[in-house]
Structure formats: structure tokens, C-alpha cells
């Protein structure tokens, strides 16, 4: 533990606490959580289902703690398919050993093909045969990203693999997700949601979550619409008509009202930008319905041309 001082943990804890909207009072607890993971008490096993690795790449964009801390110490990352030096049967042995040892946090990235086992294999075995043990023996399961949380794009209408989120898969295996599963949706997931959930769980245990969605309140309580910097345009009914215009992006397709996440506060990529600021309508990428229905398109440009399975109120959610 010679590497990081208490003060540095507090600094990172403060940054995380600000990210959660928890206020400075929460910083010491989070610093404890970080310290506990740092000292190797908490192992993290990372498995990929039907994923694009975007959530792993997003995790590497983490700051405070940055990638070095994450990779070498913060996570005690026993296995990660994109980062681990190990490969082949040695990798499978490492995964099996971790599962047998138990007492780890399991992070799952990607959806689970419940109707086509061959659609995701690991070391020649269907993931669906490896995952149940890994889920049962984990202290905590984190579904990283919308595919793992709710099925995401692989579960979109017309899919043939029966892609499902981790929670649905747990239930089909008779594993109770309550007090065990934390869903961190996003396409990709924001690095703070993963790092923050790990740190919180290591220090204080299972976080407060939405009772239906299992999403931690600290990141997913308010909608993008609620905290949108363009909200004043919405109130004045000043809508952008073309991409690149000022104004509320709702008529272009913005799904901010349906997307519960704190993007307006933390933004993306070190705070250099985020969707609404760039004039890009929110795609609703943290919502359970993200990309699910064919007829529920991201943009509204084509709306006048075809019958749509929604009305304007469906896109507004609870917003009025």
C-alpha cells in the first residue's frame, strides 16, 4: 500500500463523489472503497457475452482513478479478455480458478444468447454453460452497459439469438438478482458508473437501486431531460429544426425524457463534450427500451413517411 497516500485516495473519492452527485461528505467512504480494492481484497472478473467491447474501451477512458490505477491496482482484475496477458487454456484455467475461489465482483459486458447457445462461446464452451457458476459464486454482479443490463441492440426486434440481459438470464437459472445484481446501462457505459459502483460496493455494500431496473440511483436517478442545459428551450417551445441548430432537440428525435442518467453533469471523455452539447439528440442509450423496437427510430426525420408504433407522448415519457 506504499503507492498511494490516504490523501490521494481522498482526492479520487472526492472526484467520484462529485460524479455521483453525493457531495463531499461521501468522499471518505468512497476513498475507503478504493483503498480496499487497491489492497487486493476485492477481485474483479470480467467476462464478455455478445458485446462490442465498447464498454471496456470506455472504462479505459476513466480518469481519477485513471487507467494505470484501474489496470494495475484499483480493480485487481483477475481476467479481462481484451487486457489480460494470458490466453488459451491458461486463460480458461485462470477463469475457473477465480470462480472456484469465489468472493469476487463479476462484471459482465454484452448480452447472453438464451436461444442460440453457439452464438457466444468461450474456450469452445457456450458462455451460457460457464456463466451460471460464475454468477452464483460472485459477491456482486455488475452488468456493464445496456446489452448486459437489458439486452441492448443484440436483443433488438428481429434478433435470432434470444439475446437477453444478465438479470433475465439469472432468473432463468434460478439466481435471485435482488441485492446481487447492479445494472449499469449505457451504450457504452460511462466509466464513472462502473468505477463508482465498484468503489461503492467495496466500501458500503450493495447500493440503492431502482427496484425494477436495478440501476444505482447515484448515476441513474434523473432523466437527461430533467437536467438538460437546453431545458429552457423546451419550456419556451423553441425547437431545433435542423441538425446543428440551437434549440431543444426533441423534434429531431431527442430521447432525453426516456434516458435516466447523469450525462448533463459529468458529460463524456473528460468533460470535453457530450451528446446534447454537440447538438446530437440523446439516443436514450441507458433506457431499457434502447434500440428495441424497429418502428421506434432514433431520429424523427422519417416519421412523416411511415406509420410509427408510437405517438409523441411515448417519446416524452413522463415529461410534459
Amino acid at each position, binding site marked *: 500500500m*506504499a*503507492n498511494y497516500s490516504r490523501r490521494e485516495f481522498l482526492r479520487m473519492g472526492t472526484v467520484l463523489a462529485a460524479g455521483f452527485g453525493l457531495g463531499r461528505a461521501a468522499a471518505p467512504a468512497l476513498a475507503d472503497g478504493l483503498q480496499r480494492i487497491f489492497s487486493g481484497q476485492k*477481485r474483479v472478473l470480467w467476462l464478455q457475452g455478445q*458485446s*462490442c*467491447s*465498447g*464498454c471496456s*474501451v470506455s472504462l*479505459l*477512458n476513466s480518469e481519477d482513478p*485513471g487507467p*494505470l490505477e484501474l489496470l*494495475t*491496482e484499483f480493480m485487481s*482484475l483477475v*481476467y479481462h*479478455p*481484451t*487486457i*489480460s*496477458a*494470458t*490466453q*488459451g487454456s*491458461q*486463460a*480458461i484455467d*485462470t477463469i475457473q480458478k*477465480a470462480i472456484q475461489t469465489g468472493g469476487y465482483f463479476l462484471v459482465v459486458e454484452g448480452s447472453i444468447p438464451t436461444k*442460440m447457445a*453457439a*452464438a457466444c*462461446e*468461450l474456450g469452445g464452451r457456450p458462455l451460457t454453460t460457464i456463466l451460471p457458476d460464475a454468477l452464483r459464486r460472485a459477491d456482486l454482479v455488475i452488468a456493464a452497459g445496456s446489452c448486459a443490463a437489458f439486452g*441492448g*441492440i443484440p436483443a433488438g426486434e*428481429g*434478433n*435470432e439469438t434470444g439475446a437477453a440481459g444478465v438479470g433475465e438470464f439469472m432468473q432463468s437459472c434460478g439466481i435471485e438478482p435482488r441485492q446481487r445484481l447492479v445494472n449499469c446501462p449505457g451504450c457504452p457505459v460511462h466509466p464513472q458508473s462502473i468505477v463508482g459502483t465498484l468503489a461503492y460496493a467495496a466500501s458500503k455494500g450493495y447500493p440503492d437501486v431502482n427496484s425494477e431496473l436495478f440501476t444505482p440511483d447515484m448515476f441513474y436517478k434523473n432523466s437527461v431531460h430533467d437536467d438538460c442545459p437546453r431545458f429552457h428551450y423546451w419550456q419556451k417551445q423553441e425547437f431545433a429544426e*435542423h*441538425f*446543428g441548430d440551437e434549440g431543444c432537440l426533441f423534434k429531431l428525435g431527442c430521447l432525453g425524457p426516456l434516458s435516466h442518467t447523469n450525462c448533463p453533469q459529468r458529460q463524456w*471523455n473528460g468533460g*470535453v*463534450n457530450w*451528446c446534447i452539447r*454537440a*447538438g*446530437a439528440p440523446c439516443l436514450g*442509450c441507458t433506457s431499457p427500451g434502447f*434500440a428495441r423496437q*424497429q418502428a421506434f*427510430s*432514433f*431520429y424523427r*426525420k*422519417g416519421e412523416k*413517411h*411511415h406509420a410509427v408504433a408510437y405517438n409523441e407522448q411515448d417519446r416524452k415519457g413522463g415529461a410534459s
Partner: protein
Amino acid sequence: MSSSVTVSPLTRIEGHLAVHTETEPLAEENAGHRVTIARCAGEMFRGFERILQGRDPMDAQQITQRICGVCPVSHGIASVRAQEMAYGIRPNHNGRLLQNLIFAANYLQSHILHFYHLAALDFVDVTAILKYTGADRALRAVKAWVESALSREDAFAAAPFLPRYEADYVKSDDRNVALLGHYVEALDMRRICHEMGAVFGARLPHSTALIPGGVTQVPTLERVLTYRARLKRVAEFVESVYIPDLLEVAQEFPSYFDIGHGCGNYLCYGVFELNDSGEKLIPPGVVIDGKWEALEPRNISEDVACSRYASGTPRHPSEGITEPEPERSGAYSWLKAPRYRGRVMEVGPLARVVANYMNPKETWIKREVDAVIGSLKLPVNKLFSVLGRHVARGLECRWIAAQASRWLDAIELDAPATCDFDLCERGEGYGLTEAPRGALGHWLTIEDYRIARYQCVVPTTWNCSPRDGQGQPGPVETALEGALLQNPEQPIEIGRIVRSFDPCLACAVH
């Protein structure tokens, strides 16, 4: 006696790849095994092409970016090109520049990530950190962490860097420690590249600002300066760290200029549009049997003889179908097998270099490459190798960083980067571009304002393709066949050869 050697999962690439080989021991005892047959198997399928059917075409540049989290922008660009062709529009001046700048940022990110975080651990000895005596804060932290993990006899000591295959790593401790230091620095660099991409692309991975005809972000002076400050740091890293490291690894492992030759045919669609006439910074070209020819997209087809799909004759992607049949006999991979005029083709940075080096109309790339291989004192055919692929990738970073600076200069500040367009009731289009790891094409058919057909032929689909109906192995399979494995129990050579292609399996299968 022949035996089989399998690496499954082959980690430190994107996605789920298994490599199966059959090997023969050399006559001399303990001299190693020779690979006689190699098979690459993609082990994950989602069905994007089917999921896209029936959707609003404008969903495509968002949905297809999610094919791959390492190169989402490439799919976004291919998709907007296909749509732009169908709608009959072109990005305006700013739209083209901003798309290029987002794309350039992701190229730099991807190449740096590949060399340092995916490939380097095949060459660098991480345990050398224990002998580190210097004062660098990050390296001292890594050393203390490894020491404490080892002293606790933690069963997972120094994961994710250990365990690993024991093999012939870089010998000098100083050099290993320097390379590890650069591994750490490169983590920051690739993150900064993503910040650059987000400056105009809203965020990365998965840029939401990318739309047909341009980019939603309006370029302001503040945006340009934010990008430029980061680009400067990355460009300096490429020149003063990445390229020297590449050359050091090349010097330490010269045999890898003779290993992993591949199929010897190269395909490049060209990338980074410079003007409305479609001229590209890296022009397209095809090299078959050592002869250059102009690209003709009609010559592309996909074969599924050994792929886990309902069988049929090879089809052009504009007529392609994707009908999964996981248990079909004889099928061993979820990848289709794309072919050009029925031939096996390598794609990627090396293919881009070769397709331009061999172009009878001499491009600037030939002069650049001649200068580099001149300084390495290598005959040009040594580039057709594991190290050649790494060198091509490094050179590309240099070229792209320089060009990105010029694109920033050319931006018309505070002017929109979008154009007006109408959707079309029916239409067809295709978008050909180059992802960091090679030639990428999307083919789109629109009927009744909806997607009737969408097919993606992706870089790693070419490179890691299985055998086709003619029995021709794919490029990576070809590169593996004939390779020598010093120790078949720890076949590090397989990983070195396969990773030189920078495979992305989520792309390849989608």
C-alpha cells in the same frame, strides 16, 4: 507424429476468437513444431444485418457503430456514405473535415491501443519491473504493486499481466522497463485521442454527432483549440515514443520480418475523403499476384461454405443474406469468407501501404515508405510480415496526425457541418472506407423508407475468414501455416502472428 495446438480464447484482441492448428514436430529433437493446418473460428454472433432490416435508415449509422467499440467511427462513416449515396447528398466542406477529424482521432486511438495494450505483451517482459531502480512515479507504483502481490502469494498475483506464456521476451531490463513505462503513457494517449474524437463527435466510443451529410457539432474556435492541444501531445508521442519503440522491437525480433507472410494479395478501399470528387488521402487499390489493379467493388463476394450460415453460392454483398445455421456440418466459424475475384485478400495498414506502393501512378505513400525501409536497410518484401504490419500501422499514425492538423486549419469557423437532405422512398447505396484494421464496406437497400437489406463486409471478416468453397484458407490461416512453434505448450508465436493483423471479431461477425 502430428498433434493439435489450440489457443482459445485468443485474448488481447477485440472479441471471441479461437485458433486451432495441427502441427508436426521437426526432425531434430526439441526443435519445435511446424504448423501444418490452421483454422480461425469466430465464436460470437449477434445478427446486426437482420436487426437492421425494417428500421429507419437513419438508425443505421448509430446501430452499426455498436458493431465494434474499438472502431465505431469506421462503421459510422461507412454507413453515412451508403446513406448519402442513396439520398444523393455529399457532406459540405466542414462536414467532411469534421468527419475526417473524428475518424482520425479514432485511428490514432486504435493504433496506439493495438501496439501497446494488445500486442506489446507478446514481446515485453513485464517481470523486469521488479528490477526497476529509477524514480518514475508510475513505474515505482507498478513495481511496489507487483512486489506486494508476489509477497502475499496471491493466486492471481499481478493479474492481468500474469500469468502469460513463458517465451523469448525482450532481453534488456532497461528496455523492458522503458516499454512498460510507454505502455502506461499510451493509456493516457489513447484516452486523449478519444477526447479529440469527442470534441466534434460528442463522445467516444459511439459518436452520436455523426449523421448523413456531416456532423451535428458546429465548429467553433474553442472546439478547434481543444482538439489541437491534444493532437499536439499525441503527435509528439507518435514521433518520439511509438515509432522509436516499434523500431526497437523490430531490431530485437528481426526474424518476425520473415514470419507471418500471409496470402500475398492486398485490398484497400481508400480512406479520408479530400473533396467532392471522392479523392482520398490514402487512395484505393488492389494487388493480386504482385500486380496492381484499380478497385472494382463488383468483384467482392462472400462465401459461406465453412461458415455457420445456410449455405449457398458466393454472393455480392448488395445481394447478401445472413441466415444463421450454427450446427451446419463442415462450418467452423461465424465469419463469412469474403473474396475479391474469388481470391483471398489481406486488408489493413499493410494492405493500404502495399496497394499504394505498387500503384503505377506514384503516390506520396511510396516516397514515405521508401524512406523508411531505406533507413531500416530492408528489402521491401520484408514488409509482408508480422513486423511489416506493425511498422505500417506506426507510419499511418504519423501521416494521420500530420494531416489532422491541416484539416483543423481548413475549418470554416462557426459555420454548420451539416447539409439538408430528403430521405428516399427507395434507393441503394454503399459506403467503402477503411477501418484502422482494414477495408470496410456497408451495402444498403431502402424500400418504402425503410431498410430492406443491410450487409457489412468488415476488415477482420477478410483477414480471419475461414476456408471458402474452393478450400482456400483465409489470410490469417495462411500466415499461420508453416509457422514454427518453439514450444507447443506455450505457443506465443500464434498470438504474435494473429495479433499483427489487429483482429476485431465483433466487427468480423456482427
